[in-house]
């Protein structure tokens, strides 16, 4: 027999021996699959899907850190071996005396942020017009300060040396998102938190948390939206300011976004 024919025969013999061997696992799987089909087995570890949390959002991480530091009364170098927290935090000034006088650029920025809130359906036009009118009337001076996390506070007071605050706005400097707004005015106006709050969620790009809902059974039932995923609460409220100017009662408008870790359903 020629050598070429011999090789062919050898290959055929090998193939004939190996193919059935290789088929054994296939057969085994087919048989076990058939045995498993129709059987029920309990999953012993619960299924967990990936859900967003507050930590997935820069703005909320910043706010969580800010509140933690403020709760510890940290207003300077911070070295704490117990919690492993090291570094430095400086809170921004909250009174005109410690703040920086805002030039026209900063005042324009303040106005731009307010208009963004109006255009976004968060701040009612009537409240915007009211505070603008009073800032003009009282010749309100605007000051600003920053903390080391990058939050900017802009405050406008009645006159030069008054402690009566017409407006207090807090903005994250990196993203330009508003985290708190306080307006005090001689005339109050209607608000609609059910419309303003979802609009604010969208404006702050927090809708991805996906579970914003009314915190039923809490003090914030009529004024708030809560995300359990984000452990965050935002409120929109108006009421009696209790401060007066020229014997006139004042009213407030408030927007607040902040960490909220306490039990919500009571």
């Amino acid at each position, binding site marked *: 027999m020629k050598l070429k024919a011999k090789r062919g025969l050898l290959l055929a013999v090998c193939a004939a021996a190996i193919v059935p061997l290789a088929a054994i696992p296939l057969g085994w799987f087919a048989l076990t699959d058939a045995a*498993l089909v129709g059987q029920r087995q309990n999953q012993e570890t619960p299924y967990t899907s990936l859900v967003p949390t507050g930590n997935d959002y820069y703005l909320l991480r910043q706010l969580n850190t800010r509140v933690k530091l403020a709760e510890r009364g940290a207003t300077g170098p911070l070295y704490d071996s117990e919690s492993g927290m090291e570094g430095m935090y400086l809170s921004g000034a909250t009174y005109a005396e410690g703040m920086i006088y805002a030039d026209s650029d900063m005042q324009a920025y303040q106005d731009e942020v307010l208009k963004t809130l109006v255009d976004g359906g968060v701040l009612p036009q009537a409240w915007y017009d009211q505070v603008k009118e009073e800032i003009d009337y009282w010749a309100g001076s605007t000051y600003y300060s920053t903390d080391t996390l990058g939050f900017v506070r802009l405050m406008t007071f009645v006159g030069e040396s008054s402690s*009566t605050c017409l407006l207090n706005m*807090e903005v994250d400097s990196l993203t330009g998102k508003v985290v708190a707004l306080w307006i005090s005015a001689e005339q109050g106006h209607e608000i609609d938190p059910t419309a303003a709050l979802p609009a604010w969620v969208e404006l702050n790009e927090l809708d991805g948390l996906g579970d914003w809902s009314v915190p039923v059974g809490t003090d914030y039932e009529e004024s708030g939206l809560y995300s359990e995923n984000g452990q965050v*609460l935002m409120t929109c409220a108006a009421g009696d300011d209790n*401060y007066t100017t020229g014997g006139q009662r004042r009213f407030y408008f408030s927007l607040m976004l902040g960490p909220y870790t306490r039990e919500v359903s009571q």
Partner: protein
Amino acid sequence: MTASRKILLPVLAVALLTACGSAPSVSATAETAATAETAPTWTVGDMRMLCNSDEDTYFVSLYQEWEEVGYVFGYDLITRVNLDTGEQEPICRVPGCEHDSPDCLAYVNIQSSEILIAAGDGSLLIYHKALDEEGREEMRSRYESILHDPERRETQYPGLAGEKYLESCVEMLSQPSHLDRISADGLSRERLVTLPEGLNPEIVCWDGNALYGVMQQGNLDVLSQNDGVRIGLDGQVDTFTIPDPGYTSLVGGWNGRLVLRHTRCPVDMNTMFLYGNYNGFYALERDACVDCWLYDPNTRETERIQLPGESSKFLCLAGDLVVYTCAEQEGYSLCTYDLMNGESRVLYTNQDSIFTTAPLNRIGGKPRFVRSYYDYESGIVELSTGRFWSWPELDEMIDQEFPGWYAGNAICETDDDRMVLALYSNNSTETKYTTIPSPITPEENVEDARASLQAVQEYAE
């Protein structure tokens, strides 16, 4: 190696790899730990106020001095005041005791914070609330260093009185919070409970078996979380959570439940404070309502009572009545809400804020008066009618018997309808005690008195 072997090996390898494919995996079972809190092993009993008077005795700490140094370094002695005669004597009746050293069971350091509670059987409970550990240790070491430095001691705390005072302060500051009992016969004082270090609650009420109090957690007063604390007379100490502890505090007990004061605001104002918006925080605080919650620690059920009116604020509990204030067009009203039937009533309306009221203990019964303020004047208010009694009005009732003395405080009502008054004089450091007939309106005249008071108020407005 032959060529056939070269082919055979990869084929076998493929066969083996396919055979070693994915078999059904068995995942490890993760055991879920139950984290549910267990219900307390105790129940709230018949709650009562903390009061320092019983049948015929009023217990009070009165200032004493070792030497005539003029209200500088002295000590307090727990003293019995006989409500019938006004006579005063130290509670300590140990034969031979001079009542001038910490060995005397009536002795109290003047810097110490002691709450006296008449137990009802003639004995007296004394709760000592220690300072926080850090502050206590700082003060103790400061006093100790002066005590052991004769030159400084003589300059800052001269004489025997100064030395005794320093020794007493060091001793007091060494002690954690504790609860003692002085026996009815005044012959012994025993320590019932020593609280764990760091647990220094404010006590607000008791039920005969235990004291109940509240403890603030946190380094900022306005942002502290409040925990409930129960101190059993048998020595058992428990802490327990109360609902919404950032905005709720324990103020008393009623009908087997704990009474909580809850601040209700549409904004999370504690976070607003942390953000540094103080104008906003204080405006919200003034505008907030302070509700009354009834909480059962065993079932953890809460009944939330929203007091009527605008910016209504729960001030105190007086028997079945929640005493509160609310804002009106013409000022602020002092009102009551009856927990038994849910009825509320305005007692009087004032132009200025009404900040505080405190119930006047009535031995063996429910309080009928609260201490309050009216047009910048303090006095007592009758809960059934709203009639306000100023101190000068009460002075007129004692003037003939105690010329030169004036009524400065109402202590309690006795079970035979007398009111105990503390009397002061501009010419004496002494405090006298006497009783007058309780200025209570007879039940059959309550409606008439209410109507006439309302008419007077409307006319004045």
